C-alpha cells in the first residue's frame, strides 16, 4: 500500500466522519432558521407588526390632549410609542408565531422528519426556542425603532424625552424586545401542548389577550391575576417613572422582573418536557 492510497483512505474516512458527526447545535439553529425564513407568512407578519406599531405610534402621538407646558413634566412620554393596546396585539402575534412554529410542524408532519434527523428532542426544542425568541426580539427592536421617532415627531413641541438617550428609553426598548421574545416562548409552550394550528392560535389569543382583558376589566374583580400576565409586567417595567399620571398596575419592579424571567423559563421547560414525553 503506497502513501497516496493511505492518504486517500484517510481522506475518505475523514470526509465520512464529517458527514456522520452528530448535528451540532449550530446546525440545529440553522435548520430552524431555514424553516422560519422559508415561509412567506413570517415576512408578512414582520411587515405587519412594524407597520401596525408605526401606525399606532403615529395615531396615539397625534391625539394627545391636555398637555400644557405646566404639566408636561409629569406626563411620561413613553406611553405613546409603547401604547398598551398596540403592544398587546404585537405580543399576541409573537405568541401566535411561536405557537405555529411548533404546531405547524405537527400539522404538516414535518416533525417526524425533524425528529428522525435529530433524535435528541430537547436539543431541537432548545434550538427552536432560541431562533424563535431571537426573531421575535428583533421584531420588537424594529417596532421600537419605528415607534420612537414617529411618536417623537408627532409630539414635537408638546413632550420631549423620546430620543435614544431619553429617561427610561433604553430600558423600555429592552423590555419591549423581551416582551415579544417571552410571548413567542409562551406561544411555543401552547403550541407544544395543543399541536393543532387553529386550536393553538385560539388558545394563545385567549390566554394572552382575552383572559387578561376579562380579568382586568373594570367590571370583573380579578385584576390581581391579570397583573401577572406578560403585557402587564411589561407595562410595569417599561412605563413606571415616578410622576406618571398613568401608573402601572404592578408597582414593585424587582418582582416584575422576576415574573418576567419566570414566564419564558416555565414555557421552555413545558415545551421541552411535552415534546420529549409525547409520541408524534
Amino acid at each position, binding site marked *: 500500500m503506497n502513501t497516496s492510497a493511505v492518504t486517500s483512505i484517510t481522506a475518505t474516512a475523514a470526509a465520512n466522519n464529517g458527514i456522520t458527526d452528530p448535528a451540532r447545535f449550530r446546525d440545529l439553529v440553522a435548520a430552524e432558521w431555514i424553516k422560519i425564513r422559508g415561509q412567506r407568512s413570517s415576512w408578512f407578519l414582520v411587515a405587519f407588526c412594524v407597520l401596525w406599531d408605526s401606525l399606532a405610534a403615529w395615531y396615539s402621538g397625534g391625539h394627545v390632549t391636555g398637555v400644557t407646558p405646566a404639566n408636561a413634566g409629569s406626563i411620561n412620554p413613553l406611553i405613546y410609542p409603547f401604547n398598551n393596546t398596540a403592544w398587546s396585539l404585537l405580543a399576541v402575534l409573537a405568541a401566535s408565531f411561536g405557537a405555529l412554529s411548533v404546531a405547524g410542524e405537527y400539522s404538516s408532519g414535518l416533525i417526524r422528519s425533524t425528529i428522525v434527523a435529530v433524535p435528541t428532542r430537547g436539543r431541537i426544542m432548545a434550538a427552536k426556542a432560541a431562533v424563535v425568541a431571537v426573531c421575535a426580539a428583533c421584531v420588537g427592536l424594529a417596532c421600537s425603532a419605528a415607534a420612537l421617532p414617529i411618536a417623537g415627531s408627532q409630539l414635537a413641541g408638546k413632550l420631549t424625552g423620546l430620543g435614544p438617550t431619553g429617561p427610561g428609553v433604553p430600558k423600555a426598548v429592552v423590555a419591549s424586545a423581551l416582551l415579544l421574545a417571552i410571548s413567542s416562548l409562551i406561544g411555543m409552550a401552547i403550541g407544544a401542548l395543543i399541536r393543532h394550528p387553529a386550536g393553538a392560535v385560539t388558545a394563545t389569543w385567549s390566554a394572552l389577550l382575552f383572559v387578561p382583558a376579562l380579568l382586568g376589566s373594570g*367590571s370583573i374583580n380579578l385584576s390581581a391575576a391579570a397583573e401577572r400576565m406578560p403585557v402587564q409586567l411589561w407595562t410595569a417595567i417599561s412605563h413606571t417613572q415616578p410622576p406618571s399620571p398613568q401608573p402601572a398596575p404592578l408597582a414593585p419592579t424587582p418582582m416584575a422582573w422576576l415574573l418576567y424571567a419566570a414566564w419564558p423559563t416555565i414555557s421552555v421547560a413545558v415545551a421541552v418536557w411535552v415534546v420529549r414525553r409525547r409520541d408524534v
Partner: protein
Amino acid sequence: MSAETAVLPARPAFARRARVTDLVAAEWLKLWSPWYTAAASAAVVVLSVVIAQHDPKPVVFDAPAWLLMMLAAGLLGAQTVVTEHATGLVRSTLTAVPDRRRLVAAKAAVVVGVTAALALVLASADIVNSRPTTAGSATPGQIAACGALGPVCGLAGMAVATLARHLATTAAGVCVVLGALPLFLQPKQNRWEHDVSNALPYYSWSRLASGSGTMTVPVAWGTLAAWAVASFLITVIILDRRDV
C-alpha cells in the same frame, strides 16, 4: 310485467337526489362527531358562568364573560368551513353535492342551530346561577338577544373561514373580528371609535341584553341582523365562485 316491476324498481332509493334533510344530517355529523365540539361548548358554558359570578355589576348576562361564548360560536362556525379545506374533505363534499348554495345553506342551518342552542344553554345557566342582585330580572327580549348572538357569531366565523381558508389564519381572524375589535374599540372613546364599535355584534348585543350603551333597540337588532346576512352572503357567494 308485474314481475319485472318488482325486480327493477323505478329508481333505487340511494340514487335519489339528496334532500335538504340529508345535507343537514351530513353537516350535523361532521360538526358533532369531533370530540372537541361538545367539549369546547361545555367548557365555555362553565367558564363563562364562573367568570360572570365575579362581576359586581347587577346584570344577568355579563358582557365580558359572554365574549368567550362569542369566540366559541365563531370558531364552531369557522371550523365547519375551514377544516373541509384543510383536510381536503371539501372535494368529496362538492363531488357529492355539486349545488354549492344548497350545501352552504345546510351548513349554515346546522351552525345556526348549534350556536343558538349553545347561547341559550349559557343564557339559562346564567339565569339559574344569577346572583341575589340580579335574580328574576331577565326579560324575553334579553333572552332573545342572547339566542341571536350565537348564530350571528357562528355565521361570522363561517365568513372569516371562507375568506381565509387556512386553519391558523382563520382562528386568528375570528379572534380579531369577534374578540379583539370590541376590546380595542370601545364606545366611550372618540366619535369614529364610538360609531365603529357600535357596529360590532358585541356592543349591539350588550345594548339588548344588559341595556348598556346609547344605541336604540331597533338599531341594535338591525346591526345583529346585518352581520348575520352579510356573513351568510359572503360565505355563499365566495364558496360558489371560487375553485377548491
